[in-house]
């Protein structure tokens, strides 16, 4: 599991006003976003027309993470603070701890797909607190999980509102609903305590599942279990004979290990010859990625109707990434033996 810095939780507990929550929610936006590049990298490493079931599972999680990022942006806007997305500092440096995570704990990188990657990283990112190991926030623990962080945030929002703080002072016109893309039950305007709590609850459940089921309330398998399905190459299905009501006894998920591009781990633009096609397409990829951040900034700066344009860029990013990943990585005029990987770097200028 991602261990959230103790200091973050302490600050959350110490918050006395909506304003005190701003940095913490901005951190949550960065955290939600930071899961997308590793997931996309693994997805893009799958060769065209091969391993499509795995591709679809990872893709479905990416779509959810986009939703979670949108929800946290809605929350920050509702609290009257502008989310900062179009900013070089918004982009994590991979490999490294995820934003708000503890240094030296879970190090997340940009790597090609492998079965091991599911257990070593993706499941850890999404891992729920084990009920037995659960320790309440505010006790001696050195860390908290993402779920605990959001639960603490819910508690704080309730507490501040109950003590008379006017929290939801943001312009409701900045709320993004993306009608037609996400169901109205999953993405809605945050305008008060109830809508804020409901929205945060969705993030917790979709990542971890509920405390009694691997499913979130919408009936979809939580991310942790979707990645676990891939790691076992079996679908998780209801199983009355099993203790928990579910078992990995569903259909086999096919996997062709030869149909994965050997991507350069944690690819940087600078590690590709500028004159090579991989180098040029990496720069294009970073530029499209940066355009996506700028488009999202506009969406959350009061132009929710630009959401479609942002999705258009997401689609372009996927295409650019697929082509990039099919190219050899060339450095100092020689192939490195690996393919070029997606470069999630902030590049506002197409050079």
């Amino acid at each position, binding site marked *: 599991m991602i261990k959230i810095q103790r200091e973050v939780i302490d600050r959350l507990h110490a918050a006395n006003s909506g304003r005190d929550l701003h940095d913490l929610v901005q951190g949550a936006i960065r955290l939600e976003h930071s899961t997308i590049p590793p997931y996309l990298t693994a997805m893009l490493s799958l060769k*065209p027309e091969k391993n499509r079931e795995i591709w679809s599972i990872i893709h479905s999680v990416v779509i959810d993470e986009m939703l979670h990022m949108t929800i946290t942006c809605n929350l920050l806007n509702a609290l009257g603070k502008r989310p900062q997305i179009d900013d070089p500092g918004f982009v994590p440096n991979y490999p490294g701890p995820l934003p708000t995570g503890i240094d030296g704990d879970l190090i997340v990188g940009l790597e090609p797909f492998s079965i091991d990657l599911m257990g070593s990283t993706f499941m850890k990112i999404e891992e729920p607190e084990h009920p037995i190991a659960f320790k309440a926030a505010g006790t001696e623990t050195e860390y908290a999980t993402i779920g605990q962080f959001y639960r603490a945030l819910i508690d704080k929002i309730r507490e501040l509102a109950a003590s008379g703080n006017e929290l939801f002072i943001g312009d409701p016109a900045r709320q993004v609903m993306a009608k037609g893309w996400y169901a109205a039950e999953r993405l809605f305007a945050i305008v008060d305590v109830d809508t804020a709590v409901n929205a945060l609850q969705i993030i917790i459940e979709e990542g971890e599942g509920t405390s009694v089921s691997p499913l979130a309330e919408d009936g979809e398998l939580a991310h942790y279990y979707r990645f676990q399905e891939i790691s076992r190459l079996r679908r998780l299905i209801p199983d009355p004979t099993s203790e928990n009501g579910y078992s990995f006894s569903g259909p086999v998920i096919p996997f062709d290990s030869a149909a994965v591009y050997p991507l350069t781990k944690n690819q940087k633009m600078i590690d590709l010859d500028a004159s090579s096609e991989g180098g040029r397409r990496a720069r294009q990829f970073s530029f499209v990625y940066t355009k996506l951040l700028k*488009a999202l900034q506009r969406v959350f700066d009061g132009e929710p109707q630009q959401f*479609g*344009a942002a999705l258009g860029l997401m689609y*372009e990013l996927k*295409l650019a990434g697929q082509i990039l990943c099919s190219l050899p990585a060339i450095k100092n005029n020689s192939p490195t033996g690996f393919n070029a990987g997606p470069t999630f770097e902030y590049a506002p200028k197409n050079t």
Partner: protein
Amino acid sequence: MSYLETPRIVFAGRFISDVSTINNEDANFNVAVSPAILGWNPRGSAIFDFYECKVTAAEGTNGSSAADDPVMGLSVSGANDRSSAKMVDLDPDWQFSSEIWGLSVRLSDPGTQELAFEGTFAVSAFRDLFIRQLTQALAKNIPNGQPSGGRYISVLKNVRWGPVADRSPVLQQLRQSTDDDEVSIVLNMFGYYYSDADGRHTTGAIVGCIGPHRRSEPQFFNSGRRLQSLALPTPGGQSTLVGPADARINPDDNVVVDLGHALLISDADGSITDLAKVGTALADMKALVFGVLPDEAQKPGDRLKDGQATILGEIDYLSVNWYQRTGGLSSFPLDRISKAKALTHPLALMARMSDGDFLVLNRETQDGLFVRADNFVERLDPGGSAEIEFFSYRHGQIAPNLPLSLSFAASGNNTPPGGLTFQQTITTDQNGRAKLLISATDPGQPRPDIDGQIYALAYSPRKNAAGQPDYTGSGLNPNFDVVVAHVRTSFAIPERPEWYRDIQPIMATYAQLYPIMNRHLFKLDDYDAMAEHRKLLLLAFSRPIEDPNYMPVTRDLSKNKLLTLVKWLEKETGDFANPLVKGDPAASTPVITRRKPSFTMRQTRELGEEDIKRAMALLFAKETADVLSTTSSQEGRP
């Protein structure tokens, strides 16, 4: 007024044009057969964008120097917060005016990203295609693969000015001198890489200019004066030695000549070729000069003694970085006498020879008459129509009351002839403008696998002996300078569209032609994939056609087929919970299992050469060559 006047910005850099190539072959539209010829970029996405482009020079009003202006070095890019523009052909049978859709042009500070200005590039098609890497093409040694270059002239609309513009005197002058917050732009493109052995695969070089625009002027070509291209006999047939050039006498008594898309280049980077070193005809050439011919009778190749022509000045085209510094533009002051001469006599490029004679190279059109269609690429559904606007000039002045004749052009398919109706004669008004109405009726299915038909119309103020538009001396290419329309086959929107019967036959074509979608995203010809991505598809199929996310990217689907797709995806109610109608599999058009396209280098290389041959053949078609040999110019009869 256009970038031919000042203030003017010059920029240079590179572009990416990731055009797809499977749709270049008619045979590939037959979905029952695997594509045999894939072309040099079968997984193209149609993306067009600038990269590494920056402002390399600027001139203030009246040509004042702007070397220290903040505009220098600004980055020139596409939009920074939406999808890339797209470059698409009209049709496999018409690949000679590829258009750029959904492009924004943005100038900004490369360090701070602060905006100078951004405007929407009015959709336009390239013109004046010719082989610029001639010596390499003749030696069959073109590392980049595509020796031809083309140029786009357009306007940037709805220009938004940013803080950098406030600090730049040149941009302030531009803003003040232009009409309607629109500016004129030219993109001269060349040095395109077919070869995927090179990191520059699917990219090329660009030199462009931006200047003011007048609402009374054409948007997609330069008004004023036109110098005809100059042909040269080569072992491979007639070739263009100097391409078409535009010129204009500006109100400040300067004459400007635009060689931005006229000179040969020796490599893909745009190193200008020394004319004295192409063949032997100009071996004794000492300088390239611009001037005025003594009378209408002079032809290319004529020698004039010193004093016969009015020499306005030399063009220092071989100096270091001349192209990137000037955009290919040169201007010369006119005194009273030379101005009087230039206003009424043919302008010309000449070679000053070692014996002091002047050899006529490119000369102005016959009698200074220049007539061109502004918009000229149309997509028409049965019952639809479009207005084509023509502008006419004589020695740069508006030419009113000029009859223009029209007929089908040899470069179109034009069958059945009733598919496109048009006036055979139109006459320019007192402003030298004329409108042509073209109307479409259902052409049926004259091509078995491709929707509709391609029609091309030739036009000219002159008629030949057969009563057809005569391009001799017009400054235009009879094959390419036509009005071209894709007229779509009639299609009735079904009451209740079904997958097998109505949708799959449409999508199967796209799946075959654009494997990037099928291989990398989802299968367009698969019901489940379509259902899964229903929302995305509905968004894309419902965008305005100018939107960069419009689907189909190629913009070649008839209105009713598009509406059928939308109707099916919405399933009338727009309720996504309703499954998409599948219908009876028996209603499906049989599609055999296709062989998977394999993308081999070998094929890519061979096709590069094939494309060159095809371009050469079209550029120097027999009829054209016949005329060239008599007039030494590129014009000919359609």
